[in-house]
């Protein structure tokens, strides 16, 4: 973990949704939801501030460095920081939990894609067979007859 964590911006689509921040990782196609506090920590990760500085910027009553460390760990685990190493080296989660309690933990949640039936379409999209309908523009039919 770098001393001055930096939020990953490259290939990450950011969409505010009320208090939450929704992030879509275009590299891994994973989606994440940060609650208000986790969003705050993420937005303070500018590559300039250190962990204690981020904790101070969050203000009094934000449960301090342990909360920030927890959040950074979760963000790193979700691959949302430019520096991939885990903050676990600095503070184990178990110790953090002892220090801050469950209620105070900012949430970094993975979002599961809804499983609606594919909209009726005249062409097949990525991963669909190209035997019944042609592949959509820009896709090719592989030798295993799947659109890629």
């Amino acid at each position: 973990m770098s001393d001055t964590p930096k939020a990953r911006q490259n290939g990450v689509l950011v969409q505010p949704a009320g208090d939450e921040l929704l992030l879509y990782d275009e590299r891994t196609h994973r989606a994440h939801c940060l609650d208000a506090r986790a969003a705050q920590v993420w937005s303070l990760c500018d590559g300039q501030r250190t962990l204690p500085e981020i904790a101070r910027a969050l203000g009094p009553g934000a449960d301090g460095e342990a909360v920030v460390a927890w959040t950074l760990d979760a963000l790193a685990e979700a691959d949302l920081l430019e520096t991939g190493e885990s903050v676990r080296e600095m503070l184990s989660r178990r110790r953090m939990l002892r220090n801050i309690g469950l209620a105070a933990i900012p949430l970094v949640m993975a979002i599961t894609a809804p499983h609606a039936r594919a909209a009726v379409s005249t062409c097949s999209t990525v991963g669909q067979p190209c035997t019944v309908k042609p592949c959509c523009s820009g896709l090719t039919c592989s030798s295993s007859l799947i659109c890629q």
Partner: protein
Amino acid sequence: MIRSTPLLAVQLADALRGTFRARAPASTEVSAELLESARVSGVEALLRRRMPAAGRDAERYQMLEEALRERRLAALFAALEAHRIRAATFKGWALSRLYPPGLRPVGDVDLAVHPDDEAHAQAVVAALPAAERPEVDLQSNLVRYLPDRSPSDLLARSAVHATASGPIRVLGAEDHLRLVCLHQLHHGGWRPLWLCDVAVLLESLPDGFSWAACLDGSRRRSEAVLACVGLAVEWLGAVPRVTPPAVNVPPWFRSAMAAAWERGFRRSPEPLLGIPLRRLAPALRARWPDPLSATLHLGAPLRWVPRFPVQLAELVRRAGRHALRRWRGTGVTPAAGAPA
């Protein structure tokens, strides 16, 4: 309300009523069966608005999808514009933008282009960087849904919508509403989302919307459009921004839509050639056309004629078409991009 219709459809229509508006609907009990039905038919995020304690993952995910799609669409339109290709998108993002964010899945990109531009547009799409390329369903011929409108007219009436990522062209409101109604009938109306789309379109009609222009063309298709409009008002509580002509939804239409919601997605029927005897009856039953698509495909009147002969005639038409294809040795229309 819905009479003599399957219970699930009644419950779903009641639960979806008004869920497509910005103001959160009143909470209500939602059964697991109803939620599962909503999940597979793309209205999960809408239905979950009735369940305050429920997870909002579908809504969140769709919100991201919508933002991503908007960015990619704007890039696609910029590329098409640079090649002087006029195109307009419809359904998908063009509808999800009318809902509060995240409530509708965006699906793929339906793009209408002039037949003369189709090959060129395909090349432009293919040249986009893979990471920025949306899944495009390029359609130069919307004859399936709008046989009474030329591609040139559709494109001429399309309108540009400014977005944070750039301008995106969408079919004109009159053509879009007509298409959305006829598209759902073409596919047997099994997806409740499609009727929600009609409701949302009705509530977002632009100033100057012309019902005469929307209903211009084939009279029977226009009657079908009005029946969809009537059902969206009756079942989902849609309040059209511009009052439509008076409509009386035929009872069979109502029951057919409810049955389609109840039945849900219909898989392509099993090929009959070489099928074991025990599976023959269900395979034949699966081929029985639904009354909505049969009426649309045959151009049958919505009133005065019972549906059974219409469905029978549609079955004969489909069988004839299939036989003709086999006789010509083409089988299924060759898929563009499929290996030789």
